[in-house]
């Protein structure tokens, strides 16, 4: 317990007063503390961490943590984070997003970030609803479940966040839930250590908006649902699809190596700087520009 208090003292901002903006029973605090424990275990200096967020309840997460923190626009956290990482690769960059932020308004940025394989980590806090605006259905609201904009049940179908990330090319993908808080921080740790783009989906509960609309009795009951309806990835592989109906899998789903963007870019750049053939290539490109200019106006001189 004292270790937990020590970690909290080290990583929470003394100048930012608690409580958080989040409702009682919200799972986001569990995700925030798992993120802090993971960073502590990786051992990276606070000065060298940048946490970026978009809009929504998860968007407020960076405000409380004592890193370089940037609260940006709705859906754009990963695009913003891309700029930070490319401009200063020594930083450990984490983008914290909700399901609406990452997958609806930010869906395009999400898949392209997965594809590019820049060494940073995306945390998707998936509570299946737009919490801050009061319970509208999101890209991860299950079919048939209610939101204030789906008062008779959602007619759309939900994204499987981890499959989407894997399909888009993320080189590390994992999922757990706020019930499995210890597992979650282990997965965050692995994700941060992974060289390349990593995604961790943290299944969480929004009792205030989602729970009440969908007849959950309490936040605790929602956590119990996570416990009873999730299956470790390895065990799920041996189960029939029918048995897995309505359940989600947990654990590391993808962990593979692929050349990382910045490493590839720098390799190319240093080759251009040192290799005479490559230097000539740069010269050729510039000469091609000049030749095009000459063609446009042959009277040059």
């Amino acid at each position: 317990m004292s270790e937990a208090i020590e970690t909290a003292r080290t990583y929470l901002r003394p100048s930012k007063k608690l409580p958080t903006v989040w409702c009682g029973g919200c799972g986001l605090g569990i995700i925030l503390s798992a993120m802090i424990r993971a960073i502590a275990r990786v051992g990276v200096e606070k000065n060298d961490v940048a946490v970026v967020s978009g809009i929504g309840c998860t968007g407020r997460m960076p405000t409380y943590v004592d890193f370089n923190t940037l609260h940006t626009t709705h859906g754009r956290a990963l695009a913003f984070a891309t700029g930070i990482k490319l401009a200063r690769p020594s930083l450990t960059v984490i983008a914290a997003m909700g399901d609406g932020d990452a997958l609806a308004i930010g869906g395009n940025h999400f898949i392209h970030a997965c594809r590019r394989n820049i060494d940073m980590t995306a945390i998707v806090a998936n509570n299946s609803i737009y919490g801050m605006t009061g319970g509208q259905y999101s890209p991860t609201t299950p079919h048939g479940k209610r939101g204030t904009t789906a008062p008779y049940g959602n007619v759309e179908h939900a994204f499987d966040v981890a499959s989407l990330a894997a399909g888009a090319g993320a080189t590390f993908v994992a999922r757990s839930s706020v019930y499995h808080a210890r597992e979650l921080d282990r997965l965050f740790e692995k994700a941060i250590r992974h060289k390349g783009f990593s995604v961790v989906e943290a299944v969480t509960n929004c009792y205030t908006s989602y729970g009440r609309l969908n007849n959950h009795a309490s936040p605790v009951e929602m956590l119990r649902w996570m416990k009873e309806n999730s299956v470790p990835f390895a065990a799920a592989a041996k189960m029939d699809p029918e048995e897995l109906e309505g359940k989600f899998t947990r654990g590391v789903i993808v962990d593979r190596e692929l050349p990382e963007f910045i490493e590839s870019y720098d390799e190319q750049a240093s080759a251009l700087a040192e290799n005479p053939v490559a230097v000539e290539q740069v010269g050729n490109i510039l000469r091609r520009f000049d030749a095009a200019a000459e063609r446009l106006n042959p009277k040059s001189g």
Partner: protein
Amino acid sequence: MKADPKGVLTGAHYLDGDHAAAEGALAAGCRFLAGYPITPSTEVAERFAARIPKVGGGVFIQMEDELASMAAILGGAWAGKKSMTVTSGPGFSLMMENLGLGIMMEVPLVLINVQRGGPSTGLPTLPGQADMMQARWGSHGDYEIIAICPSSPQEAFDYMITAFNFSEKYRVPTLVMMDECVGHMTEKVVIPPADEIEITPRKEYTGPPEEYLPYLPDKDMIPWMTKAGDGTRFHTTGLTHDEKGYPVMNADCQETLVRRLVDKIRTNADEIAILEEEEIDGADVVLISYGISSRVAIPAIERARREGLKVGSLRLVTVWPFPETRVRELAKNVKALVIPEMNYGQVYYEIERCAAGNARTVLVPHAGGWVHDVDDIYAGIKEGLK
């Protein structure tokens, strides 16, 4: 501070405006460009992508769209690189979202808009000047911004450096409003030696890291900036915020913040105003123009002068903040102000407002797609003298 010679391609070149702008950015010390291809601006990104590995210490990335491009350069600037993006009308519309974030977070960056004909997809390969009011008011909320308009490849080079310098000095996104003609015309561009290029450094915080307040304004209203990773851990947000950068949701904080964002530019408008004046003294009519229209107007002015008419010229290099002081003064001393622009009245209305009835204002409009007919500008001068 002088320019870093690694980015400066000193010598006489034959470049189009887009390539010249890319060279201007490199000379200014820009080391991060995130962009999305769009005609007629793409050549800026192409040249930057080709040149940056050789310059060293920089990176180019092609993002998935203009929303992302603008977001990425905000991140790049916060991580310490001079950053820019480049686009044209449709992309400019998408960039408005995060341009507002840049204004709110007070991020130095440069955005080039090589204007084409609009609205919507309009005329991708042909010129326009109809994004001038969008440059001023395009993002939601209240703010001031800087916009400058080069009229030649040489100026595209020169004013990119000015744009970066303004953005650093005032911690505000700075717009370089070119047009397709300036972007695609090819002319001689002389790039001076690095030690002749003056660079405004970032207003960096140098105090004790633990005392850093990201939005504590200096006497000049501009807060000190830091970069992620330098030990001055900070919070920044698009929400209305206090000196610590923390969100504060009330009218007092909003008033203090927005007032400062506006005033830091507005009170320096005269200093930011770059104007070119010619034969203003004793003129009956003054032609006010910007961008390519300034050059198209020259034969019309010369023709009028050959006929003995007293015509002066005021060229706005800085369009935003609007050089109000000079235009107000001018209106009191001439009969008419004639304004050719490739739109149906944008900067014109600012001039009309500042003329305040002291001089006639004559708009010579053009919807874009090509430059003005010289005869139309000449007719505008005659109209002003009626």
